[in-house]
């Protein structure tokens, strides 16, 4: 082992990579996410010894092995529970949960629900490729209806779950979205997620080149992206389109969004909604938008901080008299009423 002499602030993205050979398929979207995470950590000068990556099972779950930080590759779906324990044991650690659509929303759906509502201070990055990759291509809980796969040769009949709608429903206080190939945007979203105290949920549309290639082409293809994506930013108008002439507004008399083209039918910039990332109702509407009628909403869709679980837990412990250092156990054993002395 070599002795590190550089300071944290001098760490480069490559310094966050472990010495292990990365073993995702060539062209996998996971590489881009790994690269974005390395970049964010380097920007932050994150101390490697205080950073922990926790994962479950699946392609995304290999992530910790490729980091030079602490890492725990656990079991299928349970990373949020293990990360909660890590954070309870040492709230000063910076803990990331790397998960996938099967890991986080199928076998681990229950843990995802509870870690979000509890608001444990974690960055949770869900790689959504709408397929089970590691087990060779079965449809997943985010696969669109009719997905043909080895386990659904006639097409799946169940309806998919929307990751961000699930997160909002669970009570997440930070919900964001990006795309593996949208490198600067992804880095920005991860930076915001890291800055947020409490559970930060980030869905990344990630292309599986082997089992579900092109699943997101409808809105990720470069040539149409401006018209099929809306990049939301707090305080800015919800405008998109190659010519920045299309916007989202509330349909008059209804609680739903509609797309308007500025200058057509009397639509003015004033009609267009401004993004308010603290507005939960708006967030719910934004995450439901789907092509072709609507653009896909990307960016920080909802951010409304509240005290985190481990902070409140420790506040209670202190209120109960807990202090650092060795507790007085003799006091414990003799404290309650009902002792007697035999001489």
């Amino acid at each position, binding site marked *: 082992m070599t002795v*590190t002499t550089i300071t944290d602030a001098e760490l480069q993205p490559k310094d966050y990579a*472990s010495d*292990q050979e990365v073993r995702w398929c060539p062209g996998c979207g996971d590489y881009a996410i790994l690269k974005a995470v390395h970049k964010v950590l380097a920007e932050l000068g994150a101390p490697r010894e205080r950073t922990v990556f926790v994962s479950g099972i699946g392609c995304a779950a290999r992530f910790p092995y490729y980091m030079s930080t602490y890492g725990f590759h656990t079991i299928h779906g349970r990373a949020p529970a293990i990360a*909660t324990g890590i954070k309870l044991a040492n709230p000063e*650690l910076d803990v990331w949960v790397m998960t996938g659509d099967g890991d986080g929303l199928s076998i681990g759906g229950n843990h995802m629900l509870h870690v979000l509502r509890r608001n444990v201070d974690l960055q949770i990055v869900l790689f959504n490729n709408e397929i089970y990759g590691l087990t060779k291509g079965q449809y997943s809980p985010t696969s669109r209806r009719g997905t043909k796969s080895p386990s659904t040769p006639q097409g799946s009949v169940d309806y998919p779950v929307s990751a961000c709608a699930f997160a909002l429903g669970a009570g997440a206080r930070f919900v964001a979205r990006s795309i593996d190939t949208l490198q600067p945007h992804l880095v920005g979203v991860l930076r915001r997620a890291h800055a947020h105290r409490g559970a930060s949920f980030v869905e990344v549309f990630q292309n599986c080149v082997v089992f579900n290639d092109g699943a997101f082409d409808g809105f990720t293809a470069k040539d149409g992206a401006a018209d099929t994506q809306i990049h939301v930013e707090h305080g800015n108008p919800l405008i998109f389109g190659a010519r920045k002439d299309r916007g989202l507004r509330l349909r008059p008399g209804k609680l739903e969004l509609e797309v308007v083209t500025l200058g057509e039918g009397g639509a003015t910039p004033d009609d267009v909604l401004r993004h308010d990332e603290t507005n939960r109702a708006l967030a719910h509407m934004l995450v439901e938008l789907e092509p072709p009628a609507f653009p896909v909403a990307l960016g920080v869709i909802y951010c409304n901080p509240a005290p985190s679980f481990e902070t409140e837990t420790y506040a209670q412990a202190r209120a109960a008299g807990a202090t650092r250092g060795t507790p007085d156990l003799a006091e414990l054993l003799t404290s309650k009423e009902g002792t007697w002395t035999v001489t």
Partner: protein
Amino acid sequence: MSTSLTSPARESRDSVVIRFAGDSGDGMQVTGGRFTVETALAGNDLTTFPDYPAEIRAPAGTTYGVSAFQIHFGAVDVMTPGDQVDVLVAMNPAALKVDLKDLRIGGTLVVDTGAFSERNLTKAGFKANPLDDGSLAPYQVLKLDITKLTLDAVKDSGLHTREAHRCRNMWALGLMLWMYGRDRDATLAWLKQKFAGRPEIAQGNVAALNAGHAYGETAEMSEYGGGYTVRRAPVTPGVYRTMSGTEAIAWGLLVGMGAAGLEKMIFAGYPITPASLLLHTLANLKRYGVITFQAEDEIAAIGACVGAAYAGALGVTSTSGPGMALKTEMLGLAIATELPLVVVDSQRAGPSTGMPTKAEQSDLFQAVHGRNADAPLAVLAAATATDCFDVAIEAVRIATKYMTPVILLSDAFLAHAAEPWRIPDLDRLPRFPVRFRTDPAGFHPFLRDPDTLARPWARPGTRGLEHRIGGLEKDYDTGHISYDPTNHARMTQARAAKIAGIANDIPLQTMALGEDHGHLAVVGWGSTYGAIHQAVRRARNDGVDASHIHLRYLSPFPRNLRELLARFDRILVPELNNGQLAHLLRAAYLVPAEGLSKVEGKPFKVSEIAEAIERMK
């Protein structure tokens, strides 16, 4: 200590078993609990056992809504809650219906005649009133209208009838405290404190308690005799308290945490009967370094503990049989990543939901073998409520020293049973400080200690020790992922050898009673200790060549156990399951272990084991 002895003279008894039985809303657990405190203060040895229904509020007056509390106390060494009841207090017909079968012939039956209405008799399934039909002739029956006597006693306290009616249990307690010459000062003080915000309720309960006591003391009771005395038990000098098995585990874990030099315990649990009590107990002990976490399910509970252990804290989870099944995969992860963990299993009758409030010892196979692949870990069992304290400390020692999950087997009986406990001198308890790895030189996460074979405990936050672990197989020499066949064989053997090696670090198996060789060894584990012990003692008094061996260490077994068992002609293994330890002993040592099974959700009676010994003598 003052006594309230009055004439006529009291009879002396060595030991007595009293059972308070009534509707689950009648406050029988409180009554028994208060009688226990007063009895402990009177210097008797004792064991208690609550028996309450799974339903929180079963329909009043029904047999399945009966709640009972049994206490066995005496001037001698008391080890079980007692086979047969000497005094049964039945607060309604349903209680009489359920509990009369355990009252010994000639025993005392106290009934509240005021509760023997036509309606209650029907609900309990009596066709005729047993108070009138001669069916109670074998017993000494005290027919008292406790309901009316209570209402009369509390009429000045301003309570509504319903509230006044709820004071019946205190009247019955007052009478029983008089009958056995117990003080009631501690209970009076307790009532005043408990109902400090409702002085009229405190006053009503005090009035009822005093009235029951006075009833015994005055002429009204003299026709039944002058009560009894039970001498103080000869005990080692010291400061004592009563302690339940649950409290013992909670305190033992905290003391173990301190002995390991750890500042923090993360205790995560999911509500399950009868294990929830430990979560409740620890949730009130946060000032002593425990953080409690009610997880979303059994898997998350143990998952949080695995995470906590990875981060350098003591991780402890607690559950019962069905919950253990759910924790199985996470135990495998803790074994593969070699992280310390304590899992407390309060066993209950199963399979599946089974009988949640009833004790069984049927998770032994699950604890020792119940995981995918070759996945050894350490298994310990507590024998008595106070033994839970020592076993909890030992579980922490083994977990942290060997970097392994440890399963501590308790059961529904031990969780609730209570006995007097001499508070130990904490400075004289064992210490086993953890040494976290801090030196990066030559570090890899699976570098084994040559003696214990344990891997280093390297906490996140330690600079230079950044590493990745997981459920995938690791290379023995580097800790990196490895699919190499020979390496997997080597790691499998290393994991097994580490657990097997614990046998060199635990006491040799000693005799609980009798010689270490001879005709019959009665081998037990867990909460059957008292019943086996008394049965063997009784047999030995009758000249039978029998000895008692009681196992605390079930995985690995003590290293002399093979040789010890070989010195007996026959081996009897009484268990509250269908023969699990007998099976393990046969498999491990090829010895002719013969099982004695009881799976009724109830503890063994001494007589049941005594009969088996008689058959094998």
